[in-house]
């Protein structure tokens, strides 16, 4: 087996951050090479260097033995390296065909050959076994559909090396399976792949070898068959962290904290009704597109509803906007932290205090800046947010730390009900554990948590009860006991009615 | 008012993209040159607030005499006041300015409108449908329209069927005229408050192949040329911008030298130019 890529002493510095520190390892021809590491370890940065987005400050990369120095992604593509970015990079108002062929349009007689492109795109997507409306602009498609279009785009360039930066973060299990089949197919065709994921089990499922980065440094490259999950985690965080999930305590109280009645967004939907007790974690499971996010948004008044009754501590409250929700102690930690959770250009402090400013007023008018700093500093310490200072703009934090900033913001408001929408999406194991622990601390304080998650192990490990949605309605609400497993949840999530254990 | 002996003259124009004012600037420069005076000028771009700033800056620079071509009669008062307070002699040119000005030099605008109206009535043999292409509502323009209306009122069979505003700007006047012709298909003649507007009308009438006679005020070289061409543009009441400036400077200098008994208002006559006397006319 020879090396298709040799990474030698690559160093990359951003202002104030050493993202990659003298990293060296090789990628073998035809393998699926898994790259792991905590948030901010430098994985995406390294991949962006390979694909010509960034240039290394020092060190070199050899492709088939020749040194490469791409100054833009096109050059990398021409040399056979393409990448699917962690952040979506589709054009929202163009359709699937237009996106797939962007930059390499077919022409006939000097004008666009739309027919040929449509046909080829269709063929390509057919091999993925997904049906995508080719007429619709991609911003009208689901996240998963967009993901497949991205992959189709990369694959159709017919690469030597395909880089997938957390492609599964937004996919369901089934969709992940389809993706893995695709990866196996490509591997058979001789495509070399670099695969980044925070899901360790995925490494075992499709990976050949694994490289781990920590704080921008290379930690090791091993055959996956020689590794165990525990070992990988130790490589990542540099120590044993014990279990991946904290112990579930289930100490919730009797009183109902929040009761949602007759929530309905439009005529086509059925009513949604549920309750959450004080100090309880209600897990919300369901397939992508089952309407969990939309339920949550409707609940806090971010979107319009047809009908909705909400009781907090038995008292009826009117929630017609997120600010009503805030006033009544309900907060949403949204699923897309960059576009919905953070003000990327503002500092850590400003982000954290944005919705608790009126709690710290001087003479009822002015911001008490000392108090603001103190409170923010405390939250940063409590949540162990890695940031050089309170003044750092959140844009420069890694994903996990950004997520914690959103959390800190809501902890600062003394809310009683917190809705976490995919709280651990794109977050490393260490940070995940911290977030789980934090949830436990919150429920200990009597806060109620609604946790929307597509990761079934997480739902099973954290929730007191599990609510399963299917096609915008609640299909089942289960007490989370020994009888409930992934299979049960999937059964209801796919529309099953009365679950019969015997069959 | 300044420490050195050289006389310094400043002129603040309401705008500087009309030949009328450019000619004034030329007269200003050549007159100043012949007496060895320093000269400066500014362009208010129709904004009287900018004009005040411009005047302040020129006064700061040390002018002795200010020729003020006001963008607005009332609004220019602050500029007049400021200049007077600093001991500068202020002569309003072309349009009246409020405040303690030393003199006003301007055309007999009422006459200009009246003469054009008379000429139009004569050409139409006392009957027809006519329209007014109005302009920016400042006193001289208003007086022209007044004069024109007075002349027309002497002819009961001439009807003013439309009044539209072309803002004294060529392309604007052109499209306004187009619409005017649509709304009044049997239009015989148009009176424009100035030549720039009339030239816009001319473009519209020509490309529509209509037969509508044009009358105006100013004496703009292109208008003279059009009159000589002889088909549509019939006459313009010519003003004498160079003379306005020359008289203005003269009065300013007299004041500067200490003259006390000076006329406060010097109306400059206008002259009707038609195809008979257009040859050789120029500002």
């Amino acid at each position, binding site marked *: 087996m020879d090396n298709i890529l040799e990474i030698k002493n690559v160093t990359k510095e951003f202002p104030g951050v050493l993202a990659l520190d003298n990293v060296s390892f090789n990628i073998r021809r035809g393998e699926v090479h898994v790259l792991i590491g905590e948030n901010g370890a430098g994985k995406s940065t390294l991949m962006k260097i390979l694909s010509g987005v960034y240039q290394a400050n020092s060190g070199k990369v050899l492709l088939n033995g020749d040194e490469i120095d791409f100054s833009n992604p096109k*050059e990398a593509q021409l040399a056979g390296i393409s990448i699917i*970015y962690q952040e979506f990079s589709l054009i*929202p108002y163009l359709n699937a065909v237009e996106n797939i062929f962007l*930059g390499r349009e077919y022409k006939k007689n000097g004008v*666009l050959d739309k027919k040929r492109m449509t046909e080829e795109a269709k063929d390509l997507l057919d091999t993925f076994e997904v049906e995508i409306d080719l007429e619709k602009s991609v911003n009208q498609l689901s996240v998963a559909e967009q993901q497949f279009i991205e992959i189709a785009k990369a694959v159709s360039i017919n690469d030597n090396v395909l880089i997938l930066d957390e492609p599964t973060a937004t996919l369901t299990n089934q969709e992940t399976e389809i993706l893995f089949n695709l990866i196996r197919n490509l591997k058979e065709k001789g495509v070399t792949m670099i695969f980044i994921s925070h899901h360790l089990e995925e490494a075992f499922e499709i990976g050949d070898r694994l490289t781990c980065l920590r704080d921008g440094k290379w930690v090791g490259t091993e055959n996956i068959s020689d590794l165990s999950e525990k070992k990988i985690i130790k490589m990542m965080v540099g120590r044993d962290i014990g279990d991946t999930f904290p112990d579930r305590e289930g100490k919730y109280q009797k009183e109902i904290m929040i009761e949602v009645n007759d929530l309905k967004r439009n005529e086509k939907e059925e009513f949604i009704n549920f309750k959450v007790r004080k100090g309880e974690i209600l897990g919300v499971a369901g397939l992508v597109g089952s309407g969990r996010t939309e339920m949550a948004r409707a609940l806090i008044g971010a979107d319009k509803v047809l009908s909705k009754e909400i009781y907090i501590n038995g008292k009826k409250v009117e929630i017609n906007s997120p600010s009503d929700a805030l006033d009544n102690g309900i907060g949403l930690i949204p699923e897309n932290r960059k576009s919905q959770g953070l003000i990327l250009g503002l500092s850590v402090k400003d982000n954290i205090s944005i919705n608790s400013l009126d709690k710290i007023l001087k003479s009822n008018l002015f911001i008490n800046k000392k108090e603001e700093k103190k409170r923010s500093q405390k939250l940063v310490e409590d949540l162990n947010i890695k940031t050089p200072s309170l003044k750092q703009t959140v844009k420069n934090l890694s994903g996990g730390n950004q997520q914690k900033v959103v959390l800190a913001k809501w902890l600062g408001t003394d809310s009683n009900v917190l809705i976490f929408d995919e709280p651990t999406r794109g977050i490393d194991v260490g940070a995940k554990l911290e977030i789980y622990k934090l949830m436990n601390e919150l429920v200990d304080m009597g806060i109620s948590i609604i946790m929307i998650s597509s990761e079934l192990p997480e739902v099973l490990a954290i929730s007191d009860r599990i609510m399963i949605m299917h096609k915008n309605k609640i299909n089942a609400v289960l007490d989370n006991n020994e009888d409930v497993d992934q299979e049960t949840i999937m059964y209801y999530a796919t529309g099953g009615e009365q679950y019969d254990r015997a069959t | 008012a300044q420490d050195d002996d050289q006389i310094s003259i400043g002129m603040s124009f309401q705008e500087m993209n009309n030949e009328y004012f450019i000619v004034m600037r030329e007269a200003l420069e050549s007159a100043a040159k012949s007496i060895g005076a320093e000269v400066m000028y500014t362009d208010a771009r129709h904004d009287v607030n900018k004009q005040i700033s411009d005047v302040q800056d020129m006064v700061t620079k040390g002018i002795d005499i200010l020729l003020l071509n006001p963008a607005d009669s009332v609004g220019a008062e602050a500029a007049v006041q400021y200049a007077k307070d600093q001991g500068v002699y202020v002569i309003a040119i072309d349009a009246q300015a409020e405040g303690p000005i030393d003199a006003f030099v301007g055309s007999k605008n009422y006459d200009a409108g009246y003469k054009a109206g008379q000429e139009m009535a004569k050409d139409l043999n006392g009957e027809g449908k006519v329209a007014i292409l109005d302009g920016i509502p400042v006193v001289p323009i208003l007086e022209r329209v007044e004069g024109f209306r007075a002349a027309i009122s002497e002819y009961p069979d001439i009807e003013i069927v439309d009044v539209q505003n072309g803002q004294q700007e060529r*392309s604007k006047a052109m499209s306004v005229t187009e619409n005017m012709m*649509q709304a009044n298909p049997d239009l015989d003649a148009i009176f424009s408050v100035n030549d720039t507007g009339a030239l816009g009308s001319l473009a519209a009438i020509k490309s529509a192949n209509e037969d509508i006679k044009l009358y105006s005020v100013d004496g703009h070289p292109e208008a003279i040329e059009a009159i000589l061409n002889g088909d549509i543009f019939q006459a313009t009441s010519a003003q004498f911008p160079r003379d306005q400036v020359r008289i203005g400077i003269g009065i300013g200098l007299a004041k500067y030298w200490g003259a006390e008994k000076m006329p406060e208002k010097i109306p400059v006559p206008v002259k009707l130019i038609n195809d008979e006397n257009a040859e050789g006319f120029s500002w």
Partner: protein
Amino acid sequence: MTGQLSDKIKNNNFKELLKKPEVLTFAGLILLSLFMSIFTDTFLTGRNLVNVARQISINGIIAVGMTFVILTAGIDLSVGSVMAFSGTMLAAGMADWGLHPVLAIFFALLVGGLFGLINGTLISYANMPPIIVTLAMMEVPRGLALLYTGGYPLSGLPSSFSVLGRGYVFGFLPVPVLIMAVVYLIAYILLTQLPFGRYIYAIGGNEEAVRLSGIKVKKYKIFAYVISGLTAATSGIVITSRLMSGQPMAGTGFELDAIAAVVLGGTDIAGGRGSIIGTIIGAFTLGVLTNGLNLLGVSPYVQRVFKGLIILLAIYFSSKKKK
């Protein structure tokens, strides 16, 4: 069952159609025209419609370049000044330097394209915000035009040159309208049939993603501004011929009319979505509005109020649809 289904499809298609903002504006245009036809007896005459078409040609042509720029999520406030400067240079070419009209026209286009190139380069390479670059560029070319002419309009153009602004083809179609039609046709082909057009839309949708796709974003963005410069110059040529003189002060405020036409035509001011057909509809709507109000004898002051309110109304409906 099948009947129901096809009904549903039809219904959907119809709804889809209604979602296109330019369709809405088109409906508005029809309504407006209907209104004018009923309340004036001159609106619906051949001569008047030809007139309206000629009146909008200046703004219509400028709006083409503006469409390209706005699609890339940019804006070009310099069009009026560039138009004035190109027109002035055209007149200077013929009157002062004795160039053949055709040569002078090329020169004028070159001047317009050059300013587009400068705008585009500053925006693309120096990463300066379009609104500011082109705001500053409202001053420079106009200043140069005034400087060159000393403030005078430049006249003395060869009489043959008047055909571009005042002539007719087939006896009824004004040349400016023909020029406008050609410009729109070219723009239509560019935007819908060539990769270039794709990139223009894509850049407005997600510039970073387009860059990562290996497309030379900077180059195409510059092209958009060059096109805007060229259409401004084309308008400058038409207006110079119409007025038979180079007018350094022409085009003041034209940028706002062009933007209004583009946005009335349903193009998203934030870029990425829109169509050139929408733009011509938008330009016609503005033209019919002004013409109609004039024919109705509405005072120019009231016209301003009307114009503002109607733009608001149109955008209100189209932004409601978009949601």
